[in-house]
């Protein structure tokens, strides 16, 4: 159905603002994701002990921590709607594209917040270091966008299923492997001291991944939402 774009933006923002306000009231997703991230980081730091690790291992551990945090909380946006029975009302009020974009923005906000907390902690706890702050931040940003691009639709799918929590990671992982491989490769190079020139191919891949996954989600979301 044709949607006028000003209406779409307004509705997207309305959905987003609703979710942020809800989250602000009980802080359910934020606290779960943050605690999960800190637990994973502590595990990593404990098991490394005093030794320092190669950049590639550090990069892998970093993205494993963020992957599990994302798995812990990114499905909340849709599961909450189904569990509180508000999905039907939202379906009547807003068109699917606005709902998807609003939820995507919400997940982006949530995961960015986690990343902002986790990244400094990671550097402190594992003794990792890089002087390529700019390249690191760009990889981080593309990683957060990619994770949300792929998992928002999966969150919508599992909100209709019986066993939600476990299914979310089972369905997300095969889709995310492509992204995680590129992220680990890029992060390892950055931790090794390379700048933008050294990770150009990975950056292109990461960018393409997010574009493709968001486009596919926009096309497919209405089939999930209307069930």
């Amino acid at each position: 159905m044709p949607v006028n774009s000003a209406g779409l933006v307004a509705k997207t923002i309305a959905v987003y603002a609703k979710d942020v306000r809800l989250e602000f009231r009980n802080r359910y997703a934020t606290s779960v994701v943050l605690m999960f991230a800190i637990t994973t980081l502590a595990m990593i730091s404990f098991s490394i002990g005093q030794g320092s690790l190669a950049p590639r291992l550090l990069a892998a551990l970093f993205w494993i921590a963020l992957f599990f945090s994302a798995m812990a909380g990114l499905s909340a946006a849709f599961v909450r709607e189904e569990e509180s029975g508000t999905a039907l009302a939202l379906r009547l009020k807003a068109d699917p594209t606005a709902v998807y974009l609003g939820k995507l923005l919400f997940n982006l906000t949530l995961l960015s917040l986690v990343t902002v907390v986790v990244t400094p902690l990671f550097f402190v706890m594992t003794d990792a270091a890089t002087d390529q702050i700019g390249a690191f931040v760009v990889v981080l940003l593309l990683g957060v966008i990619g994770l949300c691009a792929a998992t928002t639709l999966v969150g919508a799918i599992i909100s209709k299923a019986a066993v939600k929590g476990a299914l979310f990671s089972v369905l997300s992982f095969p889709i995310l492997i492509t992204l995680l491989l590129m992220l680990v490769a890029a992060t390892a190079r950055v931790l090794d001291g390379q700048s933008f020139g050294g990770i150009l191919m990975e950056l292109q891949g990461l960018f393409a991944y997010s574009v493709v996954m968001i486009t596919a989600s926009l096309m497919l979301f209405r089939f999930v939402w209307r069930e």
Partner: protein
Amino acid sequence: MIWQWVLFVAMGVLIVMSFITPAPQQQIGESSRIFYYHIPQAWLAVVAFATSMIYSIRYLKRREASLDDRAAIANALGLVFAILATVTGAMFAKVTWGTYWNWDPRQTSIFVLLLIYGAYFSLRGAVTGDERRAAMSAVYSIFAFPPAVFLMFVFPRLTPSLHPSDTIVDKNMKFAMTTDVASILFGSLVLFTVLYIWMFNLAARVYKMERARREDD
């Protein structure tokens, strides 16, 4: 009926030919014969994956239960062929590279394909209601396609791999395919594909009958 007998005889001839002709890869020797079976299996795992995606798209457009059946059947057959390709690949890897598993890009991509097939059936098991299950699994099947295709066709070419990336024109391995080798491999691909189509249609008929019986009850 006649073409099933033709397939039966042709398969028999193919199996015999694959063992009595000279080994396809002289440096590797006898064990390289596995590639007459490994390549068709990997090919069918990918074909099944694409078949499932196409039927999923058609299901979302037309909402016919039989299209959902076919998407599920393609995934089930894909799972079988992906397991076969993984096992034969691992055996060949043990002989030529010394280890069963070393996360070669090709092994990574077939592993991801296995995970997607597994996830697809976990999803089917977890969603109740025929139409909702069909729609959810169709969406997942389509959504998992682009990243998997990237992993299967782009990633192995970006990363150094021990796997012969293109067996037919690989210059480093000096793999000059003789006409014998090429015709057996081509025959194997064609016959396995026909076998796949046959299995696919049989399963589709079984599903259709089961559905009819359920609706009678």
